[in-house]
């Protein structure tokens, strides 16, 4: 009887190790594939970089938009991260120009904050849009010289509404 218990315990431990290995393999695969994937319509006037895994777009005059992922750690809500981001960039000297929270077409909550900063002798806009997706944060980042950015700002805001994580 004792022998059976020992065998059962060893078997259970082995199973745990196997599951741990499987989980690690999944995590590695996920990382290798670039993490979660997103769908985002190209804003009007932008073209998409086809070879980039995450959505990335650019206008003829150099306004850029891309999506990327960060860990939602410590796990927090959208309002927390939007506030933390604003405070951090303002502390750095960025000028908060505009902040807006919205819902996407699929009902996902997001917040966009536009900051103005000097860069290379010009005033630039850096716009950060945050979505909370469970353990991850999805960031849509757009940047460009002020006058060029303002021309495409409405198109960007419209495109953000199409954002959704791919299953």
């Amino acid at each position: 009887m004792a022998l059976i218990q020992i065998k059962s315990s060893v078997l259970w431990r082995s199973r745990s190790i196997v599951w741990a290995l499987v989980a690690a393999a999944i995590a590695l695969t996920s990382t290798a594939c670039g993490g979660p994937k997103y769908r985002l319509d190209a804003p009007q006037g932008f073209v998409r970089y086809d070879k980039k895994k995450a959505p990335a777009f650019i206008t003829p005059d150099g306004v850029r938009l891309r999506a990327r992922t960060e860990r939602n750690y410590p796990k927090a809500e959208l309002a927390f991260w939007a506030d933390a981001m604003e405070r951090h960039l303002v502390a750095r000297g960025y000028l908060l120009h505009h902040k807006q929270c919205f819902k996407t077409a699929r009902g996902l909550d997001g917040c966009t904050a536009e900051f103005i900063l000097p860069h290379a002798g010009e005033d630039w806009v850096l716009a950060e849009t945050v979505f909370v997706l469970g353990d991850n944060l999805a960031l849509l980042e757009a940047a460009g010289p002020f006058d060029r950015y303002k021309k495409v700002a409405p198109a960007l805001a419209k495109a953000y509404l199409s954002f959704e994580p791919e299953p």
Partner: protein
Amino acid sequence: MTPQRLPSSARAVAAAALALAIGAAAGVHPAQAAVPGPVQVPAKAPAPVPPPAAAKAPADRPTADQGAVDGDPKARAEALRKGHPHVGDRAVQVVASIVVKVVHPAEVRRTTIESLKAAGGWPLLVTDQELHLAVPLPAVATVIDQLAAAGIVLQKSLQRVDRTEEIVQLQAKLKSKREILARLRGLLDDADTGSTLRVEGTMNQLLSEVEQLQGDLNVAEASVRMARVVVSFQYHQRQRITYVRSPFQWLNQLDIDRFLADF
């Protein structure tokens, strides 16, 4: 009784005494103000003109009234009314600055200057990124509103500097020096050659000081007649961008240079 002509040594003493008085009035050390001569005696300087009671406020007192420019029209109108030089006999200089981002700065610059000229003002400095305007006080609010409507206002400020005391002091010094100059002219009538040369030297110095004071007074009075509005189309305070470490790792990666490099 016939007035007697003073001996030359007595006239020299009088000239030296007057020179000391000039130095005292101008705030110059007696050793520097005295005319070279055989005898130097202390002289009583003309009593400085006391500033009027209204001039007791400290000069260069910045009275930034942020609420006045941050959207409250009543506060702004009140601040500008207070800044009017004729209100309460105060001489107040108004300096407003605005940083506004516009898509077409050249167009905004042109329309701003046109409306400014129509209001009786004129541009002091015109560059691609900045406009310095001399604006009649009643038109300041209109000019700022027009600029704000043309784009996105990033910063606004309004500063009032009370220059009453400075102007009163300049006027008093000027009056005092002119009186001394008039008295020196009287001495020239009876002076011999040596004394005349010394008095003329003193008068030349005095004239130079009078001109300088008159110039300062003109500048101070002009500064309170018109408001100065500084318009910048560029938010260019690069020194304000600093590295601040956040406890949240991903926030430390939010940076324009990193964004462009990783794109």
